[in-house]
């Protein structure tokens, strides 16, 4: 991990001055948004397949049970290896993957017994594993840094502060020896404390001592001004490396197995019959979900991560009919939610509504006891934004949105109304009862509609050149006759529509 960071930074400093790089990496906003975007992208692309495989809640289960993996990994680290507990250790990833796969295996075992259904099996297994994890934490691992806040919402806001330092120039340790020009030499009396001898006493014996001798790291040497130039240090947030790797891993997995994932998600029986391995692919997917959940744990906690998996995928599902496009726009919505979510947490809704202004206004009008500072959970705000985007798609999606559906229904009703009038005229035109049935001002009585509704429909049909008015009588134009006979033929006489 450290070596990888070293390589990335070596490349980066070729393009960006170190001061600027450090400024960017210690900017809480930039780091939080970047990590949020990486979390969103890595989860949102897997989320597409979770959603299509109807396994959304499996990601919820896994994001909880990875806690067991984390706890066991901590145990191995602290108890067996004697190292320090570290939330970005590769052991954690292994533990989480194992816990995730265990969840899926146990769920399938319970389900295969045939005694409970899949949802209940999931509901049985994951709280059990989660409970075991909680018991281990509270019983044995009080000193481990895992508080409830971290489990709930993560700590994306302080990710910038948890860094590895990398040095690029003037990195050597500085060793000060007594003959070093900067050595601060002094004399010390070695027999003064005993026998009432003072330093002024001629019997006093002195030795040369060096006040600042020793080994200094480059940073310490600079602080003591022992070297003329500061070391070129870059402070790299640890979560950035892990989330970047996981994002690459997930995107690479989907790029590599796109065809196989598509086939197994749509028709797993055919996939098996064609010689693919849907079960193996499923476990690979679940392993990645676990690894992603545990990597994102640090940033967004184990509960909210489900929203990062599912909401952008659900948004994309409403906006397209093509899997490839869904896989492109789902991460885009994820990243957008991360960006706008950070601003929301800082009090700006999409850059248009400053929430603190609203709070000030509310404070003045209804009184909020002076509570006018908006500063809320970053990860929760990201989820809220993701949901707002989903809501927008739900209402406005061109094909499946509520507005589109309402317009479509209205259009259909209107078309049907038109056909009813045309049919009515067609039926009575040229027959003895025509003057009575087809009088324009009385038509609504025969149709049982309101006069306004009828007048509007007639006006519409006249503009469409389907109907004309002659002597206050409605009549079909030749075009109108063609339309109505076609309608009657296809809708009423042909029986069921052809396949």
């Amino acid at each position, binding site marked *: 991990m450290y070596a990888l960071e070293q390589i990335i930074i070596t490349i980066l400093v070729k393009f960006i001055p170190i001061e600027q790089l450090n400024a960017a990496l210690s900017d809480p906003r930039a780091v939080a948004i970047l990590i949020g975007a990486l979390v969103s992208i890595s989860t949102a692309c897997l989320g597409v397949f979770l959603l*299509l495989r*109807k396994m959304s809640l499996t990601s919820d289960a896994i994001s909880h049970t990875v806690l067991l993996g984390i706890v066991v990994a901590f145990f191995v680290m602290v108890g067996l290896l004697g190292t320090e507990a570290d939330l970005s250790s590769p052991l954690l990833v292994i533990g989480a993957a194992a816990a995730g796969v265990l969840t899926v295996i146990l769920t399938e075992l319970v389900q295969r017994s*045939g005694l409970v259904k899949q949802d209940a099996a999931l509901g049985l297994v994951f709280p059990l594993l989660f409970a075991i994890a909680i018991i281990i934490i509270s019983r044995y691992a009080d000193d481990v840094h895992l508080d409830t806040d971290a489990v709930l919402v993560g700590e994306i806001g302080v990710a910038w502060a948890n860094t590895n330092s990398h040095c690029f120039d003037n990195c050597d340790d500085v060793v000060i020896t007594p003959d070093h020009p900067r050595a601060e030499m002094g004399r010390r009396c070695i027999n003064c404390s005993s026998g009432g001898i003072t330093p002024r006493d001629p019997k006093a014996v002195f030795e040369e001592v060096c006040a600042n001798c020793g080994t200094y790291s480059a940073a310490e040497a600079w602080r003591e001004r022992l070297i003329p130039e500061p070391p070129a240090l870059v402070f790299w947030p640890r979560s950035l490396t892990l989330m970047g790797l996981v994002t690459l891993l997930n995107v690479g997995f989907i790029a*590599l*197995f*796109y*065809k*196989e994932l*598509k*086939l197994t*998600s*749509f*028709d797993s*029986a*055919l*996939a*098996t*019959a*064609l*010689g*693919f391995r849907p079960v193996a692919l499923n476990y690979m997917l679940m392993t990645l979900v676990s690894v992603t959940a545990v990597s994102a744990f640090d940033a967004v906690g184990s509960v909210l991560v489900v929203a990062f998996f599912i909401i952008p995928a659900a948004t994309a*599902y409403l906006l*397209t*009919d*093509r*899997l490839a*496009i*869904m896989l492109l726009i789902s991460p885009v919505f994820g990243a957008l939610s991360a960006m706008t979510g950070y601003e929301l947490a800082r009090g700006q809704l999409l850059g248009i509504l400053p929430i603190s202004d609203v709070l000030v206004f509310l404070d003045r009008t209804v009184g909020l006891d002076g509570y006018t500072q908006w500063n809320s959970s970053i990860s929760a705000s990201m989820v809220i934004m993701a949901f707002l985007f989903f809501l927008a798609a739900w209402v406005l999606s061109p094909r499946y949105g509520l507005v589109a559906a309402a317009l479509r229904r209205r259009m259909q009703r209107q078309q049907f109304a038109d056909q009813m009038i045309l049919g009515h005229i067609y039926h009575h035109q040229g027959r003895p009862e025509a003057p009575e049935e087809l009088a324009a001002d009385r038509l609504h009585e025969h149709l049982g509609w309101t006069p306004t509704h009828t007048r509007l429909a007639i006006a519409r049909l006249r503009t469409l050149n389907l109907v004309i008015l002659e002597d206050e009588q409605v009549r079909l134009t030749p075009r109108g006759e063609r339309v109505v006979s076609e309608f009657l033929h296809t809708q009423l006489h042909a029986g*069921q*529509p*052809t*396949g």
Partner: protein
Amino acid sequence: MVNHTNHDDFALDIHDLTVAYNSSPALWDVDLQVPEGVLMAVVGPNGAGKSTLIKAALDLIPRATGDIRFYGQPYARARHLVGYVPQRSSVDWDFPTSVLDVVMMGLYGKLGWFRRPGKRERELAMAALEQVSLSDLAHRQISQLSGGQQQRTFLARALVQDAQLYFMDEPFAAVDAVTERAIVTLLHELRARGKTVIVVHHDLQTVPEYFDWVALLNVQLIASGPTEVVYTEDNLMKTYGGRISTLASSRDRMEV
């Protein structure tokens, strides 16, 4: 045609097949030989194990005993010879994909892992859609298809597999008359090209008209052979009516 076949071999040879779900048999000691080039209906009441027979043949479910060979080979080595049309309801038709994409899935087996379908695969898929008169709808989202169109999409997907033997699980279920005629025409075309087709079928009246071979199944195989020989009142009684007599030998597990 490549000569995959030995003249002594059946297109499908099932020997002593037993499949059990939770220890109750779904298929009991089935021996079935299907010669090459026939159009065979598999008929039997609900729960008779018709779909199970297909799934066991395709290694989709484990079998308790038995041996199944395609042209003398086990399925794992005969995949490229076998095409499969599952029940329409077995997939989610809201899946975000197009008709053409679904048909191309039939070619994934030949492509193997990692290789992506390209221009050639698109052309093959379009040709198959042409055969089932669906080329106009190639780029439609599959959720916008009628039941009959869905069934024809699945047929086109099996056609691109260019198999020697086809399994079709209830292709006539809930389709309109036009699609039913289209499927029958297609089946006869397949037979004319020397293919073997095994169809799970429900409409007993059309069996003699559509199929030249038939297997009557009710957990055990009641009879199989040329339609005019085995599709008799007597055999149908044994399969459907005489439930107790046919099952007396396989324990009284099915009172349903």
